[in-house]
């Protein structure tokens, strides 16, 4: 039974681009035996998705196999034609995708989509297509299998009526429709909320056991890999740098990159060093001085149905000078809305905001513009926070041009100085954002935010769009800058490990309300709410996987 199902042998793939061919996969060697679960870890751009798609025969259209071959169940599928694929794709090899919303056709009902897959399989198998009713019952069976309630009703529903977690279950049901020999899961949990992630992972795990599936799962999340996969491979720049038993790889990483990767995962369990250092000086610090204060902030949106929905519901908080103030919550908890309201980027429905004791919630026009010099925002997604048509120099110099009367030459000098501060070469002034990596862009964003010497920075998930290794760099850098420029941070994140590392005080948000607040350490050590506990627990999975060797 322990025969080899999939064998990738010295496989190299190139993609033709305008700048010449790029080698996206280099000399890949992977063997998967029946019943095995293989996890592939890698950051974005490492080539892991291209690899598994090649196994499915749905790789990039302009790619060329340069060397090696892929053998599935003894059959070479490297250069198979469409006819051959029709018997394999979706039937013997099947796939679960990253973002369940975009991978389901919005115009067809769930039942229709799954039973179409069943019909396709029956056609490929040459048995003739079973009746509609039979396919319906089989569909419902599948839906039940993936733990979806009331499959009969679900059959006639459309993707938009389902939550993200449910959609991912539907996709899994679809993938299982053909009783595949090999199941490929491409970042199956990345687009989901933390608490849902755990459930989906559990489902996959149980299905593997129940159906004796062979699985290849790719993820950037070491925790997810550790939960599901018995074996594990680490990919870096198109190469497999390390593979073996998951536990072995994680506890005893051989390759430098693996080690870096593991080290970069923030540790949720450790009491941050800063706290220890701080305790020593704390006595010296006088009573904290309030920099930013919000009282009974509310933001109400009208829903399409005509009802009202409070994105932020009666939140009060105060941020002290010099501290890092954390805001934690899942997507949709209202933390981004709150952050934007603090800066008056969104008008609050009610409530007041004070900055250095001044009520800024009623400011308009010029005074508001003036006050914005002192409080700046760093956005979640550095890729879209920079205007693609401006050079980096323009982007950094923009606040200076708007808020000051500095001459062009002075602005240029200052821009270069700022680039220096964020540790980027001066020549970047002439670059365009699309030429920069994510981490570099986020540094530019920070440079832009500190150009006017603000007192307060609001950081809205500044690292969540970045790879883990970059995330660690940016976090370190942020703390450095704060020290140098004497800044106060409001730091928003869904990642509790990060929060614990850097935040002094934290609030936990759920559905627009604060469910818990206080000293960060206090919250972590003694979470009062079930919700907080769930959040911490899900963070722990990844953290633990990364600390296996410790």
């Amino acid at each position, binding site marked *: 039974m322990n025969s080899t199902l999939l064998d990738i042998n010295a496989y190299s793939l190139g993609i033709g681009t305008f700048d010449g061919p790029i080698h996206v996969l280099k000399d890949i060697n992977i063997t998967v035996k029946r019943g095995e679960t293989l996890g592939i870890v890698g950051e974005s751009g490492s080539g892991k998705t291209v690899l598994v798609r090649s196994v*499915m025969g*749905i790789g990039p259209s302009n790619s060329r196999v340069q060397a090696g071959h892929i053998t599935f169940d003894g059959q070479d599928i490297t250069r198979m034609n*469409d006819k051959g694929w*029709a018997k394999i*794709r*979706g*039937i013997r090899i*099947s*796939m679960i*995708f990253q*973002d369940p919303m*975009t*991978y*389901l*056709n*919005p*115009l*067809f*009902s769930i039942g229709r989509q799954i039973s*179409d*897959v069943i019909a*396709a*399989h029956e*056609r*490929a198998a040459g048995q003739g297509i079973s009746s509609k009713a039979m396919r319906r019952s089989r569909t419902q069976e599948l839906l039940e299998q993936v733990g979806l309630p009331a499959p009969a009703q679900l059959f006639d529903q*459309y993707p*938009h*009526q389902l939550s993200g977690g449910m959609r991912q279950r539907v*996709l899994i049901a*679809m*993938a299982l*429709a*053909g009783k595949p020999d090999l199941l490929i899961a491409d970042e199956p949990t990345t687009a989901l909320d933390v608490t849902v992630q755990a459930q989906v992972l559990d489902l996959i795990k149980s299905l593997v056991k129940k159906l004796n599936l062979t699985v290849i799962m790719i993820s950037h999340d070491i925790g997810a890999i550790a939960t599901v996969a018995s074996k594990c491979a680490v990919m870096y720049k198109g190469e497999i740098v390390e593979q073996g038993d998951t536990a072995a790889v994680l506890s005893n990483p051989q390759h430098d990159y693996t080690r870096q990767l593991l080290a970069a995962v923030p540790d949720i369990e450790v009491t941050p060093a800063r706290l220890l250092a701080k305790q020593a000086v704390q006595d010296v610090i006088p009573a904290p001085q309030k920099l930013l204060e919000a009282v009974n902030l509310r933001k109400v949106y009208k829903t399409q149905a005509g009802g009202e929905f409070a994105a932020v519901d009666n939140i009060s908080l105060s941020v002290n000078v010099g501290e890092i103030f954390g805001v934690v919550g899942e997507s949709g908890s209202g933390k981004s809305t709150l952050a934007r309201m603090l800066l008056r980027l969104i008008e609050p429905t009610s409530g007041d905001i004070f900055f250095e004791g001044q009520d800024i919630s009623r400011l308009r026009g010029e005074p508001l513009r003036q006050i914005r010099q002192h409080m700046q925002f760093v956005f979640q997604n550095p890729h879209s926070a920079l205007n693609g048509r401006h050079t980096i120099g323009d982007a950094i110099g923009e606040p200076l041009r708007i808020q000051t009367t500095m001459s062009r030459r002075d602005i240029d000098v200052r821009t270069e100085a700022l680039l220096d501060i964020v540790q980027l070469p001066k020549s970047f002034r002439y670059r365009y954002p699309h030429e920069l990596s994510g981490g570099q862009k986020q540094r530019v964003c920070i440079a832009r935010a500190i150009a006017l010497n603000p007192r307060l920075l609001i950081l809205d998930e500044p690292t969540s769009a970045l790879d883990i290794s970059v995330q660690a760099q940016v976090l370190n850098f942020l703390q450095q800058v704060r020290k140098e420029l004497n800044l106060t941070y409001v730091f928003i994140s869904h990642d509790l490990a990060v929060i614990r590392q850097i935040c002094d005080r934290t609030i936990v948000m759920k559905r627009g309300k604060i469910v818990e607040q206080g000293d960060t350490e206090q919250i972590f050590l003694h979470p009062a709410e079930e919700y907080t506990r769930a959040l911490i627990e899900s963070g722990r999975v990844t953290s633990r996987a990364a600390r296996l060797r410790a």
Partner: protein
Amino acid sequence: MLSFTLRKLLTVAGTMLGIAVLTFVITNIAPGDPARLVAGPNATEDMVDTIRVEYGLDRPMIEQFGIYMKDLITGDFGTSIVTTRPVLDELLRYAPATIELVVVAMILGVALGVPLGMLSAVYKDGPIDHVTRILSISGVALPAFWFGILMQLYFSVDLGWLPVSGRLPLVTRPPDMVTGSLLLDALIAGNLETFRTALSHIILPAVVLSFPCLASILRVNRSEMIEVLQSDYITAARAHGISAGRIIAVYSLKNALLPTLAMIGLRFGWMLGSTVLVETVFDWPGIGLYAVSSALASDFKPVIGVTLLIGFLFIIANTLVDLAYAWIDPRLRRA
């Protein structure tokens, strides 16, 4: 639902009123004198005045505007000075011919544009793609009036296949009026011969009218198909083993059809406007021809009437498109 319908109706009424104001103002910018035209070349000043008084043209512009608006609200579109008949009667007389022409042209455009667009998208950047694209853009670039005359001369004069102009042969009695569309009425009357001749008359104008529409439908359908074919859910469908033909014909088409539908709605209005040219060339007795002849005579009540009617038809067509949208796209159904 009721309030939704009511709101929609109010919007339509508002738009119609807006169009009326707009066209009234525009058509009264310059001092054309239709009274003098209809009075005849030798008429004396007092004879012209007789007509001016009869049609209220002697009153100040503001007052004329007020009267027109008041009448309009009661459903009176005024009276054409040239034909001395109520504009509404004439609109009702000419509209069916135009609608028939536009609908047939639209059917042609969709029936050819959608498959060609699909073909073009599936074989993107191949020779088929280039040929269909250039052909389709040619359709937009062809001056309709010029093309119409070319077609007439070739198919009617040189080959003698199709009639030059008109809706029916002169001696053929039109079938009993039920819908106003000769094709439908002939079918209702069970008169296949009349149906055949009516069809032979409508082909040339419909083809000429449909060309640009075909082109834009093709273009939209092509680009949407290309986008849909690259989308994640099509990748997923492929990964789940659904055959290429089925993916294109069922899955992608339905998704690509949505923007195509919107384009059809837009093009409908455009086509109604183009009838101004095509109807002139083919002597198609519709509202386009009516608008041209009225405009050339500075007889503006019919022009306003036609504009209102076209605007109304356009809104109706787009409401239908909205409904079709909701029917196809489950995400919109709850409204």
